[in-house]
């Protein structure tokens, strides 16, 4: 008969947490923060095709760090849930809180029932009518949820990055100021001898939930629009407005 070794629940939980934390800490970071016209997502991502930031629903966005296959699975499950809710009830009945709850339950169950926890940390963000009504939920590998106050950082060295954000983030920042802050926060860690690194536009994945839009508010900021936002503007000239998809988004049927 095979010998059953006893391991205490504390030991198991500790081991799994440590395993998940190590996996997450290896990855590049992502930042989510509120600005005057919406919610900004900035992730360090070299890939143009494998996204860390995506659209879930009209006013809900998703950002994740960690193992791609695991958070991609959660992302598509979230899109399915949101679309099914919106289809069977109404588009307004799809909320970030509901989605965060479902993710929390799912991650919690995976953490305790499966032999390997998900090595992911995700953010579900819902843009509100005003900056103080934005909702940012941080979901960790063990299913715990935290409601974040308008800004959050995830991934490797999240604490150091979060420290920079906490110090300098204000609710009424412009998109440009918020983006500059996010990039400075990301580059403040990981440089040689504590010196800040530099990140070019093609190393960043940037998207916003624009609170001024009706219908689908998510849009990516890429290419020339992103470069224009990243370059400090000359004195007195406003930065170019980012490109967006057409003004009319699909009607809420």
């Amino acid at each position, binding site marked *: 008969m095979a010998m059953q070794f006893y391991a205490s629940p504390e030991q198991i939980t500790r081991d799994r947490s440590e395993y998940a934390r190590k996996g997450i800490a290896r990855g590049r970071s992502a930042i989510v923060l509120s600005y005057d016209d919406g919610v900004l997502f900035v992730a360090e991502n070299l890939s143009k095709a494998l996204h860390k930031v995506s659209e879930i629903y009209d006013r809900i966005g998703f950002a994740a760090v960690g193992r791609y296959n695991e958070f991609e699975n959660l992302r598509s499950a979230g*899109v399915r849930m949101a679309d*099914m809710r919106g289809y069977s009830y109404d588009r307004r009945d799809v909320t970030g809180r509901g989605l965060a709850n479902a993710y929390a339950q799912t991650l919690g169950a995976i953490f305790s029932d499966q032999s390997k926890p998900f090595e992911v940390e995700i953010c579900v963000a819902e843009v509100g009518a005003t900056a103080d009504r934005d909702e940012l939920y941080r979901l960790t590998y063990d299913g715990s949820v935290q409601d974040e106050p308008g800004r959050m950082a995830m991934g490797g060295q999240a604490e150091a990055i979060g420290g920079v954000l906490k110090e300098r983030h204000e609710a009424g920042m412009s998109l440009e100021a918020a983006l500059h802050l996010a990039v400075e926060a990301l580059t403040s860690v990981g440089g040689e001898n504590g010196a800040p690194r530099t990140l070019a536009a093609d190393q960043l994945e940037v998207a916003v939930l624009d609170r001024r839009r009706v219908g689908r508010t998510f849009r990516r900021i890429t290419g020339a629009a992103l470069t224009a936002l990243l370059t400090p503007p000359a004195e007195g000239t406003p930065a170019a407005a980012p490109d967006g*998809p057409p003004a009319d988004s*699909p009607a809420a049927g």
Partner: protein
Amino acid sequence: MAAGLDPSWRLPVAFATPGTSSFTEFLNMAAPDLLPGNRAVPRSAENVAPHGTTIVAISYREGVILAGDRRATMGNLIASRDIEKVHAADAYSLIGIAGTAGVGIELMRLFQVELEHYEKIEGAMLSLDGKANRLATMIRGNLGAALQGLAVIPLFAGFDLDAPTGRAPGRIFSFDIAGGLYEETAGYEAIGSGSLFAKSALKKRYAAGATQADAIRMAVEALYDAADDDTATGGPDLIRGIYPVVMTATAEGTHRLTDDETAAVARAVVEARNAQPGG
């Protein structure tokens, strides 16, 4: 089970199963009761539900127009004076429906979610032909109900982002109840009970490469002609201020003309018909 909810609040297993980027196929797996094709229909369901009537589509220089009257009928009665039968399917395409209104509206909503779902899961939009094919499949799924009297026929039009240069970017697709898909290369098409008259009017007025203003006028004229000869199609209702729904799809995306804009065109058409009733 409430839609998409597991009693434990966890995401149900079906949600996390890797698979298709089609919302319809996903529903078929996770909640088949939400799909239109999966319901028993009484042997004959004719005249039990309101019917939507005439939709016209016109391709013009910058894109395509889809316009519809506002009437729904039930037998000889008017069921609705202000139903909207033309909607944006996604950012670059439009859908209009004729036939059983309830089935059509459900189908249209499902189609909208289908396109959006694909776009979100895949991170890219379906091609215009892909969208049309998808819609054809959904119509085919309704064939059983259609034969029992709950037929619905859509008209699909969109701005083709991949259109080769020199070809009109606005494309129109029509369907039959068996799911047949036909691209209308003539540049215009109409469906619904008044389509015969609307199409006859367009045949005489249509010119390829029309401007947007001309195309809008043509669409409203065609709907007027349909309403003139078909009792189930509603003309512009100047008394109540109910005018046709006119939508465009261009490189800038889809756009619904405001009520004031359509009112101005509709009034001009009515004015012209005062002098010349045949248009």
